[in-house]
């Protein structure tokens, strides 16, 4: 059988054994028990792998389990590193540790005098005296011990399916509610939680009896000793937890509260800069952190299943200068306090393509306000110093688009050439255009005088006006505007409809006054339209292909309009021209 000798580059104590990095190894990581206690397996010694088993993990990585190893030249005699070893898989996480099925202790005898060179084949094989050792009995390092004192604490990062007797000490960062199911095979229930410690994080699920045993015991934010869960490959679809494995509690598992929990971290997050969210796939689960620049009022809406749910939107900005809208639901939405522009971190937020890119905090997300983590302090410092003055560009297209909506600039010929509005959803765009025609005929209608109702009323011709929606008759009405206009730029024109607010903005008069003029002073009424003609605005329009009686037509509506800030416009034109020239 082939024996290969290696230089032992590095050896690190990781309870309950040792992590060994071997030079010349095709795959790098191993875990040996005992051994180095007697300084036999020490850094820079030369050893021979006598018996081993290689496993290939799901992601292609290979792990070598050492079953028998022999030191042929102790470290002291080698006198330093052999050559200049480079890690084989540069950058791969050093996280897989396998305990050999039987540990063997190898004792070396002093080697007979020989030349100081690395032999390819062991030439002076030392006599090996080996004997079995139960691993787990003696702690190589002083690690925090469990209340029972019987097992040592291992890092979450070291958990793997090949070991069953371990204990971790971790903080619960998230706990779900109990979910039940009922199918042909019977009923069941489960709950899940996420744990974090200094080395990493992991998702844990408990079923049926484990729910009864542990659910009420677990409190989010507290630290526990957890032992003997089953490990399997993680299903990453539902979580942003960074661990290739996830844990299931079983009949042997134990969970005990831990008192000294100070140094266990609060959270493990891998924050994605908001600016990078554009390149992530929709439905991805991400962690984000940012300053809550603004927050809306709580609203209540009814779901398809006729449930009432609370909802609140907030706008998050980070140092990328980009903003994103985050939606909170339920109690979280109701309780949220965005005053003072706090730092908000969300672990496991769901990315959606609504409005371009937006985030939603789901039942499995964790929301933290002003968390005690370095990223939060960095953001606070940046925002207080410079960030508060940054206007920011939002990734989320807000309805109406004004004030923070990311601007989708188009020329009117673009709108036609790019077939905007032909898709399933309406398209929104901004453009600079000039009003070239305003249709003053039928621009006013008589509407229901009720504040919340804008339905056209029917003239009863007896001094009363009937609203079908409110099912009432009124002695009066209020005038409202629906203005048809043609706007144009250098390349094309577009027929648009302006409702009340935008119509009033173009005409420079309110609907009530206009209605009065129309009834009393025709020429003054016409004059308003004359004055409004040939004004240039920044339009924010909505286009949608609508089909009515077999006829399909693009309908464009003005959502918002603003006067052109010529200086800003010119500046942006110059910038764009220079960019095109690059």
């Amino acid at each position, binding site marked *: 059988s082939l024996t290969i000798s290696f230089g032992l580059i590095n050896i690190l104590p990781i309870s309950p054994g040792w992590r060994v990095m071997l030079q010349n190894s095709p795959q790098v990581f191993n875990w040996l028990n005992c051994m180095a206690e007697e300084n036999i397996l020490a850094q820079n010694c030369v050893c021979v792998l006598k018996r081993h088993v290689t496993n290939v993990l799901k992601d292609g990585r290979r792990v070598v389990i050492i079953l028998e190893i022999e030191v042929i030249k102790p470290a002291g005699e080698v006198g330093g590193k052999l050559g200049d070893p480079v890690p084989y898989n540069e950058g791969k996480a050093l996280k897989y540790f396998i305990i050999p099925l039987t540990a063997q202790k190898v004792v070396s005898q002093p080697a007979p005098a020989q030349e100081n060179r690395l032999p390819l084949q062991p030439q002076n094989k030392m006599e090996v005296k080996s004997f079995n050792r139960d691993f787990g009995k003696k702690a190589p390092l002083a690690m925090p011990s469990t209340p029972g004192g019987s097992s040592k604490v291992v890092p979450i990062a070291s958990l793997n399916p090949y070991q069953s007797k371990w204990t971790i000490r971790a903080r619960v960062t998230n706990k779900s509610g109990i979910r039940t199911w009922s199918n042909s095979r019977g009923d069941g229930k489960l709950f899940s939680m996420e744990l974090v410690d200094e080395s990493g994080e992991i998702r844990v699920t408990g079923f049926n009896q484990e729910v009864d045993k542990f659910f009420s015991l677990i409190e989010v934010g507290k630290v526990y000793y957890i032992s003997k869960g089953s490990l399997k490959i993680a299903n990453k679809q539902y979580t942003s937890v960074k661990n290739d494995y996830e844990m299931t509690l079983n009949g042997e598992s134990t969970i005990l509260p831990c008192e000294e929990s100070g140094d266990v971290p609060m959270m493990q997050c891998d924050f994605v800069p908001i600016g990078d969210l554009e390149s992530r796939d929709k439905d991805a689960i991400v962690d984000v952190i940012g300053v809550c620049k603004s927050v809306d009022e709580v609203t209540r809406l009814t779901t398809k299943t006729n449930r009432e749910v609370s909802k609140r939107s907030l706008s998050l900005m980070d140092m990328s200068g980009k903003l994103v809208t985050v939606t909170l639901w339920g109690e979280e939405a109701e309780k949220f306090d965005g005053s003072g522009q706090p730092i908000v971190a969300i672990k496991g937020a769901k990315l959606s393509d609504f409005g371009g890119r937006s985030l939603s905090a789901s039942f499995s997300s964790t929301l933290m306000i002003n968390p005690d983590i370095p990223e939060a302090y960095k953001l606070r410092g940046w925002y207080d110093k410079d960030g508060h003055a940054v206007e920011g560009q939002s990734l989320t297209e807000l309805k109406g688009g004004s004030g923070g909506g990311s601007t989708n600039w188009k020329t009117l010929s673009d709108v036609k050439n790019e077939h905007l509005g032909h898709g399933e959803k309406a398209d929104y765009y901004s453009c600079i255009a000039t009003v070239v025609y305003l249709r003053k005929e039928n621009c006013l209608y008589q509407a229901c005088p009720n504040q919340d109702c804008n339905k056209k009323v029917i003239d009863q011709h007896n001094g009363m006006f009937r609203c079908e929606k409110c099912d009432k008759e009124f002695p009066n009405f209020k005038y409202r505007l629906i203005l048809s206009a043609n706007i144009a730029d250098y390349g094309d024109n577009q027929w648009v409809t302006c409702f009340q607010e935008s119509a009033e903005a173009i005409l420079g008069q309110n609907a009530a006054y206009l209605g009065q003029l129309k009834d009393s002073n025709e020429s003054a009424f016409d004059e308003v339209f004359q004055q409004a003609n040939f004004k240039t605005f920044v339009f924010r329009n909505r286009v949608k292909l609508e089909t009515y009686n077999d006829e399909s037509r693009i309908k464009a509506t003005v959502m918002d309009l603003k006067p052109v800030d*010529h*200086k800003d416009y*010119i*500046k942006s034109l*110059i910038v764009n*021209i*220079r960019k095109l*020239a690059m």
Partner: protein
Amino acid sequence: MKKEEASRINCSMLLQHINQAVCFVGRVSKVHPSGKTFTAVDGEGKTVTVELNCCLEEELSGVVEVIGLVSNKGVLMAATYNLLREDRGTPFDLELYNEALKVIHDFPQHYPFEAAVSG
């Protein structure tokens, strides 16, 4: 001379346009007591001397647009001028005008103002 044929320039372009019709926009700096000449500053802060063919009959101040010929010595021999009102609307931004000026000179293929105007 026609305004359409005059190239828009600033002070640093004067010497490249000797004996050519130009259009200059700048802020009036100093008016000579004789009223026949004045200096103006462009968006880059440089100064040009403008000579008029007849005396000034009004108070000259603010931003002015001058059309004329550039002499051998780099003096702008004005044929006509007009003041840009600053009491209405947005005040004229001379620096921004200068940036736009640089653009039309950097990309003459896209801004063929020198092309003959019909009629």
